[in-house]
């Protein structure tokens, strides 16, 4: 019983670590968005504020998938659904 509980907790920690790998996707996506926004501002400096607000909105939406990964990690570590 003791072994089982600790084993599950350890596996939960590994799973949490694996779950936050989801952060790679949003990182790449936000980088692409920021790059394109920078290019757009370079081409049309007058539209800087519009481009920036659109970029931030899109990045915040793109961040969601990474946050789902984080949420799973949080659940595994602190709510311990499997124990």
């Amino acid at each position, binding site marked *: 019983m003791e072994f089982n509980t600790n084993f599950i907790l350890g596996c939960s920690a590994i799973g949490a670590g694996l779950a936050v790998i989801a952060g790679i996707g949003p990182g790449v996506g936000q980088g692409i968005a920021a790059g394109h926004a920078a290019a757009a501002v370079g081409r049309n400096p007058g539209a800087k504020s519009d481009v920036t607000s659109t970029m931030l909105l899109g990045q915040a*939406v793109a*961040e969601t998938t990474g946050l*789902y990964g*984080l949420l799973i990690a949080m659940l595994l570590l602190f709510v311990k659904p499997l*124990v």
Partner: protein
Amino acid sequence: MGQGVLLSESADIDFMVHGVFSYSFFGHTVWITTTHVCVLIVMLVIIGFCFAANRAVKHASEVPGTFQNIVELIIEMLDNMIGGVMGKFSPKFRNYIGTIFIFILLSNISGLFGLRPPTADYGVTLPLGIMTFVLIHFNKFRYQKVKGVVAGLCDPWPFWAPINIIGDVAVPISLSLRLFANVLSGTVMLALVYGLLAKIAIIWPAVLHVYFDLFSGAIQTYVFCMLTMTYITDACTTDG
């Protein structure tokens, strides 16, 4: 069980919701938690500001004073934001969107003042998402009528309806989870910094506060209101 495995039980890290006191409600134990207390504090701040703003506007002068200027600035900013997205539907939803904007913004920022942000509790963000969901579908039935709603469900083909329904149900969940997870991640990060690096966490965590509480909180507020407005406008527009 498992001390040392989880940092929350060994080090002095604290970002969970705590119960303040419990009472019995028809045989169920109901807890008043820190979230309730923080929501109450945020509400009191908003109500106090509203009374002050009401007084300032009632005694409005031709040349506005400092406080009147601030109130007018806030209202104008909200009006511009809402009018820019919703167009001709904006007068109807200005009150609602303005209210949730101010509430979410103050909730997110309240981490700066040592409270646990109320929006870092799923019990606060899910109702916000559900309110958006109800508004979307109420307006859909009101403007597009039953025929338009059925036509929207069977959009490409009739057998596509289950997928459209899943898409509709996912809206409030993704809205509320986005806000919740963003604020929670900021709260957890700051709790880790203060818990694990307590000896050297002297002035520099202020930078993290600016990013996680102010910047991230403001952006997420903007995103939540923007998406709510977009969805509602979408539901109001009848596109044949």
